[in-house]
């Protein structure tokens, strides 16, 4: 009987110490730890096929300019995911495509693109 008690108490103490040790262990020291053996595959080959889900372009003034300039480089979702920004914000965005990303868009087309985005996704005035 005494042996059973001793064993039980030792087990309980061990469990408590292990729990406390885990629960209140100091944060891991050093941020890097050596991993397991590196794996040794060779001849790995990765290939994926990207799906597209590009939204329809609603009719509106400047739709052709939008379709022929903007979606060469990116999905129209770059525009359709935005909230309804005012004209000045869209003008700056189109200007950024030209200045920063070097999109070769004529001034005429830039103006038409802004018109289209404002008509379909934006507002003329307002807080940004």
């Amino acid at each position: 009987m005494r042996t059973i008690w001793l064993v039980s108490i030792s087990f309980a103490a061990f469990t408590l110490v292990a729990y406390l040790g885990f629960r209140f262990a100091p944060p891991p020291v050093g941020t890097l730890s050596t991993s397991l053996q590196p794996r040794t595959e060779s001849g790995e080959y990765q290939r994926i096929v990207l799906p597209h889900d590009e939204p329809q372009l609603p009719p509106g003034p400047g739709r052709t300019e939008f379709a022929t300039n903007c979606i060469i480089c990116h999905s129209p979702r770059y525009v359709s995911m935005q909230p309804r920004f005012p004209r000045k914000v869209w003008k700056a965005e189109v200007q950024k495509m030209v200045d920063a990303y070097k999109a070769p868009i004529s001034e005429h087309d830039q103006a038409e693109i802004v018109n289209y985005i404002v008509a379909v996704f934006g507002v003329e005035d307002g807080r940004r």
Partner: protein
Amino acid sequence: MPEGMKRFDYHRRTLLKTVTLGAAGFLQACRASRDGLSEGEQFADRSWSSTPDQRPLMRFPEKAPLILLTDRPPQLETPLHYFREDFTPNEAHFVRWHFAGIPTEVNVAEWRLAVTGSVNRPLQLSLDDLRHRFEAVSMVAFNQCSGNSRGLFDPRVPGGQWRHGAMGNARWTGVRLRDVLDGAGVRAHAVEVAFRGLDQPPLSASPAFEKSLTLDHASGGEVMLAYEMNGQPLPLLNGFPVRLIVPGGYATYWVKSLSLITVRDTPLQNFWMETAYRIPNNPEANEQPDHLTQDTIPINKFAVHSIFVSPEPGEAIAAAKPREVQGLAMDYGAGIQRVEFSSDGGRSWSDAALDPELGRYSWRRWRLTWNPPAPGVYRCMVRATNRAGVTQLQSQWNRGGFHRDLIEHMDVRAI
């Protein structure tokens, strides 16, 4: 630009226009009868401001269905429920690329990582070289887009309209960048290390995506070249075969599908360092919409921030019944020390319990039991503080929608 190249560009552009017009027409014809939705409904996702997340999901290769921001190039947000797990599954880790020319095919037998520039021994490393010539290390590190939560800025700002899902936590395995730089022998006058991946801009004139770290940061021993994410090769959309891990720093520096490391004697001056990804030069990354600051710096360390994971926005809960509220808190590596919760719009706060730390650069889970006493709408808020005493702001805004450190709130309905 030489005349010949100009002409080439012109012809290429005309061709591209024709092809794109044709393709767009074809795609639209294919889709015209789809779903029976009206044109407007198919196109604009304007239900955005409602509380529950009704944005469309889309499945990409090697990925679970994720919230679709853009499809070309892919920008995919992790649905909130995945953040109930401490380690974000690889298939759910967010995706963000800058240019449509992303790598869709990598033959590891041919892939090489070049280490060049101001070094004594330029290297061409294969994946096997990385695995066998350098010590393998692993680290838990939280990753987050610079513009995570941009869609919640008020006033709204243009850019990827993320909520809180442009982030994830993972165990990364690979090699120390320092060891690779030591292998190449950095020369005495070097000041920076720059990184490029396999992605290509759609126009040759667009600025190629390249980011740099100071030499001290790059060779400090924490920055890694990771070839495994949670014990598996990285999904291609997350940077297979090797991506840079910059613990505690925004994901814009975690260059994916690395191909070129250049040790530099001068700071990198390009669009991606000098114009994009810049924040106001103050600790809170704060400025006023009508007084934009001229003084900006490249975004760098993560903000101190915290979010709700459960309940989710729009989820009604039972009144007069205790339930667990939980979420995540994160910082740049000093460590989260305290998270406080308010259910009365910030008038009173109580401490949440923190789960054990998973690593210095991990996020940290917080939870507490909350008993909304009666039916009604409760404005819940959460505020984290790190060991350096940095906490969150009552109001914050900047034009880029970067470095979110605002105290988040959520109106929870108890019924």
